[in-house]
C-alpha cells in the first residue's frame, strides 16, 4: 500500500490535530468528573453530619398517642360520660397521589355529602400535608371493613380506631355533664393533643369545667417510617396519662326520675343540705348531648336557639327569676338581726299598705288581720313583709340575701352559671336612678329587680336548714382524690343567731304542716319525715290599677303572662338532709304547681336514699381516697 508523501503529511497533520482535540476533550471531561468528586467530598465529608441528621428526621416520625378521656361517674359509680370504640377514616394528603381521586374513590364506597367534602377540603387546606384529616367518623364495623378491603385503591386513606364519648343518661344529664365537640381554632391552647384528628374537648358543664383533668396528657411514640409513612418499627414509646375520672354528686337515678317527671319550663334542684352536694338538677326541655360529637348541623342549631323553651339553657343555673314570697325568710332574718322586729311583734294586715299615694296590695284582698312573724310566713302575708322591709331597709335585706347565696357567684362547676342580681341602693345609683321607699316595699316580698336562679334558691333553703354557708357543688372526687367540701364541718356557720333561724324554720314548717299554711297539701307521707318549705308566686307582668278594678284574673291571661310558681323546702325538719327548689314557669301559684312537685321530689329522694352517707369526719390532714365507685348503698 503506497501513500503519497503529501497524503502522508496530511495524515500526520490530521492525527496531530485529533490528538490535540481529543486531549482537550478528555481533559475537559476529567475536569468535570473531578468537579463531581469534589462535590461528593463536600456532601459526604464536610456536610455529612447535617445530612445524617436529616436522614434521621426522615426516618423517625413522632406520633402522639391520644389518652383516653376520663370518665364521669355519678355518686353510685354509674357511668354518666364514658368512651366507646369507633372507627374513622383519615386522609393524609402527603400519602395520596391525588386527593381528589382518592376522595372520589372513597365516595364510591361510602358516599360523601357535598358539605362533608367541603369540610374535608377546608381542613386539608388548614393543616400541613402530613396531618391526617378525618374523612368520615363513626364508621360501623362493616363500613370499616369495606374501606380496609379496598385500601389499595384508596392511597392516603387510613383507618383509625378512636373513641366516641358516650352519654348513657342522654338528655337527663346533658345540662350538668355537658358535652364534647371538636376544638375550634380559638381552643388551641398549645396542647399538641388538640391537633389530633378526632379529639374532642368539653364544651359545657362538667366536661368543660374539668377539661384539663379529663383530657389527660398525650403520650408519644417514635416510629421508624418509610417514605410512604408506613411504620416499620417502633423505636420508643412514652405512655400518655389517661384523663382522670371525675365522680360527681348527682344521683343518676334521682336525676332521671325528676327529669322525666317535670314539664317544659320547669327546673328542680335537689341538694344535700348538709354539704351542698347537688343530687339532682333538672331543667326542661333538654337536648341530646351526643349530637355535638360529630358537629351539630346548622339546622339543628337554629332549631335549638330559636326554640323559646331554650333547651340548651340550664334553667337551674341560668334561669333568672324574682324569688317572690320564697324571699320572705331573708327579709325576716334581716329584720330579726337588725332588731327592726321582735319575734312576737304583730303587724296588722288590712289587705294593703299605703305609702304616700301608692297602695301596695296583699295577695289576700281582705287582709290577714294581726300577725306575728311565724303567722306571716305561714300565710305568706305581703303587708307584714312590706312593713318589715320598710323598717329594715333594702341594703340590710340585700346583705342578708347575699349571705344566703342569692345574687352571688356560688362557684358551681357549671361554666356560665348566672350570678343573678340582688339590688342595693348603690346598685340603683350606679344606674343613675334614685332608690324610692316604695321600691323597698316591693322588694320586701321578693318582687322587683331580683334575678335569682333556682340553684341559689336551693342553696338558700340548705343554708336556712343547716345554718352553715354550704356551697352547691358537683365534684366529689377527681382521679380518686376526694375534693374538700364533703363534710358539713367543711362549711363555716352563717353567723346568724340560732334562735332567729329556728323561728324562721318554724314558719316554714307551718307553711306545709299547719292548718292555714299555704302549702298544706304538700305535706310528706309520715314515713318520710317532715318537710318545711315556702311557696312563691311571681308576677311576670305588672298588673295595672285599671285591670285590677275591672276584675283581673290571672287564669284568663295568655300562658306567658301567667305568674311563675316557686317552692323551696328542706326535709326532714328536725335533721335536714335534702334541700329542694322548684320553679315552674307560668305555673300560676307556688302552692298549686311547685309545692306538690317538691313533695314528689322529696318522696323520690327519700325512697331512693333515706340519708346519703357522708364522708367520715376526718380532721387529719392529707388526702383521703374517695369512695367513688363504691356504689349500691341505696
Amino acid at each position, binding site marked *: 500500500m503506497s501513500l503519497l508523501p503529501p497524503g502522508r503529511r496530511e495524515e500526520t497533520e490530521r492525527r496531530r*490535530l485529533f490528538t490535540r482535540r481529543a486531549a482537550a476533550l*478528555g481533559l475537559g471531561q476529567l475536569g468535570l468528573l473531578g*468537579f*463531581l468528586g469534589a462535590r461528593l467530598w463536600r*456532601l*459526604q465529608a464536610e456536610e455529612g*453530619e447535617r445530612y445524617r441528621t436529616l436522614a434521621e428526621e426522615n426516618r423517625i416520625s413522632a406520633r402522639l398517642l391520644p389518652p383516653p378521656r376520663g370518665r364521669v361517674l355519678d355518686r353510685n359509680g354509674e357511668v354518666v360520660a364514658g368512651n366507646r370504640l369507633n372507627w374513622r377514616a383519615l386522609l393524609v394528603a402527603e400519602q395520596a397521589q391525588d386527593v381528589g381521586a382518592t376522595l372520589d374513590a372513597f365516595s364510591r364506597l361510602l358516599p360523601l355529602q357535598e358539605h362533608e367534602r367541603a369540610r374535608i377540603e377546608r381542613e386539608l387546606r388548614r393543616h400541613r400535608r402530613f396531618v391526617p384529616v378525618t374523612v368520615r367518623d363513626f364508621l360501623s364495623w362493616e363500613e370499616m371493613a369495606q374501606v380496609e378491603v379496598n385500601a389499595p385503591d384508596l392511597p392516603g386513606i387510613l383507618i383509625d380506631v378512636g373513641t366516641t364519648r358516650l352519654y348513657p343518661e342522654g338528655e337527663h344529664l346533658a345540662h350538668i355533664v355537658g358535652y364534647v365537640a371538636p376544638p375550634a381554632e380559638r381552643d388551641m391552647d398549645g396542647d399538641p393533643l388538640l391537633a389530633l384528628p378526632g379529639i374532642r374537648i368539653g364544651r359545657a358543664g362538667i366536661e368543660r369545667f374539668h377539661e384539663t383533668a379529663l383530657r389527660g396528657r398525650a403520650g408519644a411514640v417514635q416510629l421508624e417510617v418509610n417514605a410512604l409513612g408506613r411504620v416499620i418499627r417502633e423505636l420508643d414509646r412514652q405512655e400518655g396519662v389517661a384523663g382522670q375520672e371525675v365522680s360527681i354528686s348527682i344521683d343518676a337515678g334521682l336525676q332521671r326520675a325528676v327529669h322525666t317527671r317535670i314539664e317544659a319550663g320547669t327546673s328542680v334542684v335537689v341538694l344535700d343540705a348538709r354539704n351542698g352536694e347537688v343530687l339532682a338538677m333538672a331543667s326542661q326541655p333538654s337536648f341530646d348531648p351526643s349530637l355535638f360529637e360529630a358537629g351539630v348541623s346548622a339546622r339543628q342549631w337554629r332549631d335549638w336557639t330559636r326554640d323559646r323553651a331554650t333547651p340548651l339553657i340550664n334553667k337551674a343555673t341560668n334561669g333568672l327569676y324574682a324569688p317572690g314570697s320564697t324571699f320572705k325568710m331573708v327579709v325576716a332574718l334581716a329584720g330579726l338581726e337588725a332588731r327592726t322586729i321582735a319575734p312576737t311583734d304583730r303587724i296588722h294586715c288590712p289587705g294593703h299598705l299605703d305609702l304616700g299615694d301608692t297602695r301596695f296590695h296583699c295577695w289576700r284582698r281582705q287582709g290577714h288581720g294581726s300577725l306575728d312573724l311565724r303567722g306571716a310566713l305561714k300565710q305568706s302575708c305581703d303587708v307584714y313583709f312590706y312593713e318589715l322591709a320598710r323598717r329594715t331597709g333594702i341594703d340590710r335585706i340585700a346583705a342578708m340575701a347575699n349571705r344566703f347565696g342569692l345574687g352571688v357567684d356560688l362557684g358551681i362547676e357549671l361554666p356560665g352559671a348566672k350570678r343573678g342580681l340582688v339590688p342595693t341602693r348603690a346598685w340603683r345609683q350606679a344606674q343613675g336612678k334614685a332608690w324610692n321607699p316604695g321600691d323597698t316595699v316591693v322588694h320586701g316580698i321578693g318582687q322587683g329587680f331580683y334575678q335569682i336562679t333556682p340553684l341559689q334558691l336551693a342553696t338558700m333553703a340548705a343554708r336556712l336548714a343547716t345554718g352553715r354557708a354550704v356551697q352547691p357543688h358537683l365534684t366529689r372526687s377527681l382521679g380518686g382524690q376526694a375534693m374538700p367540701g364533703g363534710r358539713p364541718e367543711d362549711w363555716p356557720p352563717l353567723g346568724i343567731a340560732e334562735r332567729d333561724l329556728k323561728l324562721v324554720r318554724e314558719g316554714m314548717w307551718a307553711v306545709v304542716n299547719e292548718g292555714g299554711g299555704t302549702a298544706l297539701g304538700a305535706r310528706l307521707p309520715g314515713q318520710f319525715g317532715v318537710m318545711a318549705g315556702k311557696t312563691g308566686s311571681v308576677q311576670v307582668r305588672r298588673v295595672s290599677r285599671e285591670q285590677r278594678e275591672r276584675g283581673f284574673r290571672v287564669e284568663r291571661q295568655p300562658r306567658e303572662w301567667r305568674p311563675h310558681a316557686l317552692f323551696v323546702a328542706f326535709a326532714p325538719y328536725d335533721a335536714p338532709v335534702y334541700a329542694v327548689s322548684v320553679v315552674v314557669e307560668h305555673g300560676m301559684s307556688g302552692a298549686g304547681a311547685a309545692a306538690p312537685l317538691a313533695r314528689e321530689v322529696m318522696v323520690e329522694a327519700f325512697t331512693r336514699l333515706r340519708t346519703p352517707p357522708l364522708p367520715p369526719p376526718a380532721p387529719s390532714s392529707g388526702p383521703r381516697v374517695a369512695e367513688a365507685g363504691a356504689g349500691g348503698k341505696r
Partner: protein
Amino acid sequence: MSGAAPYERRLLLRDRGGLLRKLWRIPWSFVLLLAALASIGYVALYSAGGGPEPYATKHALRFGFGLVLMLSLALVDIRLIARLAWAGYALGLGLLVLVLLHGNVGKGAQRWIDIGPLQLQPSELMKIMLALALAAWFRRAGRERMGNPLFLLPPALLVLAPVGLILKQPNLGTGLITAMIGGAVFFAAGARLWQFALALGAAGIAAPIAYAHLHDYQRARITTFLDPESDPLGAGYNIIQSKIALGSGGIWGRGFLQGTQGHLNFLPEKQTDFIFTMIAEEFGLVGSLATLALLVLAIGFCFLTAFRCRHAFGRLLAVGLGTNLFLYVFVNIAMVTGAIPVGGVPLPLISHGGSAMLTTMLGFGLLLSVHVHRDVEFAPAGEGYR
C-alpha cells in the same frame, strides 16, 4: 479463494487464522475493570432489592450476556463495522420513528418499544449509531474538507435528525446528550471553532422560537426539567432525598444494607437512576469515590484507545463512545448530587435495566473492536468504499 468474494467476506475470512492473536489483543484488564463495575452494581442492587431478587441476579445475568456480545463484537473487523455503520444508523433512526408512532409512554414521554421480552429505548441505541455514522463520514476528512461548510452539512443533518426525533418524544435531556455526542465527534474530527460558534448561535435563536410553538404541558415539562424546585413534590423531592442519602453516608458509609434512605424508600427509583446514592449511603465517600474512579478509568480507556488507534474511523468512534460514557456518568452523578436538574439517565453497568446494559455492552464491544483492530489499514478509496 474467489476473487469475486465481496469485500466484507474477505474481511471476515482473512483473519480467521488470527483469531487467537485477536483474543490475545483484547485488553483483558479493561474487561476486568468492567467486571468490577458490574460487581459494584450487583452489590448495590442486592441492597436495593434487599437480596439477590429482584434486581441483582438479573443484573449479573445481563452482564454475562453483555460480556459475550461485547467479546464477539471485539473480534469483528473494524472495517466491516465501518461498512455497516450506515445501515446501523438507518436502523436506529427507523426505531426512533417507530417509537414515536407506537412507543410506550413512560413519564409522559414516548421512550421505549417492546421487542419480545426486551424493552428497547431507541434513543440509547441511537447515540452509538450516531457516533458510528459520524466516524464513518469524517473517516477521510482532510483539513480542507473540514473547512468546507458544504461537507459539514450532511453530518450536521445526521445529528439533527435523531436529536429532533428525541426532542419530539419529548425527552429534552437525551436530546441534548445526543447533540453533545455529535458535537464531540465534530470537534475531534477537526471542525473549526467558529463553526461551533455558528451552530450554538443558531441553536440559541431557534430555541425560543421552538419554545413559543410548544403546548403548555410541554413547556411545563421543560420548566420542571430546568428548575425542579418549581415542582417540590416531584423532581425536587427526589433531589432533596438523594442529597440526604449521599450526605448521610459520610466518609465510611452506614454499612452494607444499613442505609435508611434507600431501605425506607425515601430514595426514588433507587435501583435505576439513583443507584449511585445507594452506594454512597452505604459505603460512604470511600465507596462513591472508588466507583467514580473506576468509571473515570473506563472513560480514560476509551480515549487511550483513540490515541493508540492508527485509523481515523477508530479514533473518532472511540472518542464518540468515550464521550457517550462520560455523559452517562456525569449527568447521572451530577443529577443525584443535585448539581444539574434531573435527567433520567442511568449509570452504566451499575443501574438496573436490560436495555441500558445491552447498549452499554454494545458500545464497549465496538470500542474493543477498535482496540483489537487499531493497526489495521483501511482500504484506499475505490476498493469497497464509495
